[in-house]
């Protein structure tokens, strides 16, 4: 399993502020391998999230290609690309990302119910994820009653439910205490141990302890650390 960015770059047009064209990510080559946890750090505004969005199929690059096992994912139409995101890519976005009308359990199973119904195996896996992330007691609670750490753990379980081949996590521990941070990193570490490629955007010092590989980003350019 290999996710590869080939010379991907992203330019944005600024609506206001004078100089109108601005390059968030310079032409970048990046490879993510199965079983490897990569930590990407850098100052805010350096293009980390843009890079992650391009790699996770959410933002088409201005130039370059993103290949998953040799297939250019942006050559797919929206329906197929969406399906691929659903099956193979797990994303833990920044901030709070719960669907408020669903319970915690329903939120976690949403990637399964989006295309059909959750089967018994899905239910079982969801239960074990909640168990491991220590949110089992909250299964039938609605997100409005959850704390930040619980919501984040819920989002991680949701990203994991389809056994994705690549997992992206954008600042997954940004607003968590040390204890929660450790739980989250250990969990991502074990996912990599199970064979997934994991990319974590984080400037948490602790992240280094779990990383197989560390990258840093400055003004849209990436470098090994």
């Amino acid at each position, binding site marked *: 399993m290999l996710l590869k960015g080939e010379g991907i770059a992203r330019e944005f047009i600024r609506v206001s502020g004078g100089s109108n064209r601005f390059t968030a990510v310079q032409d970048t080559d990046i490879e993510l391998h199965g079983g490897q946890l990569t930590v990407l750090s850098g100052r805010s505004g350096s293009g980390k*999230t*843009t890079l992650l*969005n391009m790699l*996770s199929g*959410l*933002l088409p690059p201005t130039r370059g290609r993103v290949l998953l096992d040799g297939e250019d994912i942006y050559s797919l139409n*929206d*329906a197929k*690309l*969406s*399906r*691929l*995101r*659903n*099956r193979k*890519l797990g*994303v833990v*976005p*920044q*901030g709070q*990302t*719960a*669907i*408020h*009308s*669903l319970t915690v359990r*329903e939120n976690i199973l*949403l*990637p399964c*119910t*989006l*295309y059909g119904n959750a089967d018994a195996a899905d239910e079982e896996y969801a239960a074990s994820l909640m168990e491991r992330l220590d949110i089992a007691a909250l299964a039938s609670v*609605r997100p409005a009653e959850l704390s930040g750490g619980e919501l984040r753990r819920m989002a991680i379980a*949701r*990203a994991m439910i389809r056994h994705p081949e690549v997992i992206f996590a*954008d*600042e997954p521990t940004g607003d968590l205490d040390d204890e929660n941070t450790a739980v989250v990193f250990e969990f991502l570490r074990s996912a990599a141990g199970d064979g997934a490629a994991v990319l974590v955007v984080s400037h948490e010092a602790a992240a280094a302890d779990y990383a197989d590989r560390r990258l840093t980003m400055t003004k849209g350019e990436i470098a090994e650390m």
Partner: protein
Amino acid sequence: MSLAFKNLRGKPVRTAVLVILTVLLALTVFAGTLTVSSLRSGLGSLENRLGAEVMVVPYEATTKKSFENILLQGSTGYFYMDKSVYDKISKTEGIGRISEQFYLASTSSGCCSIPVQIIGIDPETDFTVQPWIKKSFDKPLGDCDIVVGNDLNAFVGDTLQFYGTDCRVAAKLEKTGTSFDTTVFTNESTIRKMIRASIDKGLNNFKDIDPEQVVSCVMIDPAEGYTADDVVNDINLHIKKVRAVRTKEMISGVSDSLSGVSRIVGILIFAVWVLGGVILLLAFTMSVNERRKEFAVLRVIGASRGRLARTVMAEALTVGVTGSLIGIGLGLLIMLPFANAVEGLLSMPYLLPDIWSIAAIACAAAAAAIVTGAAAAAVSAYRISRLDTGVILRGDN
């Protein structure tokens, strides 16, 4: 349960507001359209029921408006002219069919009766009432047989007494939505007997008439080659103390008010529709906007753009179908049982169309409400499907 349905359930107040708006929309369109269509069929029914192109009545009956009030407003009254007039009229050039009618009003004496208009016809010559009676009663009207309008609280086999004459209800007519619904029809000899009795009891305003020598009204259809205008002009020119009127002219007042009411109802429907449409548009836009992040999350976990649009549309359709079903249900519960009350309120001929037309109007009104809601939501659905996921997800951090 689908995501759309759960979203609706998750925000009960917002959903209730949207549903109530749709209810109002469907209800207004349905009730308004049904009212106009009932007025139209009432007018059509009135034209049919008058049945003759020309009517001749005593001159005083037209100046006092009593004639129009009886036929159009459902008030009771009577007037008479000498029978010789009928003979003169029948000799006028251009007469095709001709028949006389006799009017009488029952008194409101006794505990339970209300003045009722009684119209006597000549079974030999009548061409206006009998074709219609035939639908409910296909034998000739015998003496002391009466046929009652649909709005009279009497049933076949009942006996009603008018001026001491016991009359058997031989048939009950179909609803016409006009003043004829509260009219009692009988034959010539029976009504002459009643007129005589009313005079004897001192209950008739015409004290010194001979019931055998009078008629109230003459109904005429012009012969081929003659127009109603020819006949009317001829009679008004040559025969004194009577007045010939074209029925078309008489009901022109009714059709004028019908078009007035139609216009008001049309404006009302349009106003509610525009207002409802705008509010629904705003409501859906707000509802989708405040969930932009949720929709972005759906994109992240693999929902296609089409899927987002479908979710929004499914919410709108669920609201639309629920709301319009309730609206139509309410409309039926108001408009059908209270049809007579609406008729009284409008004081115009008002006849509910047949069940299939009502069903068609209901379907059309429901469709209008659903389509309005769907169109209002389509704007949001389109915008949400163009959502720039990356930008939204980093937006609030």
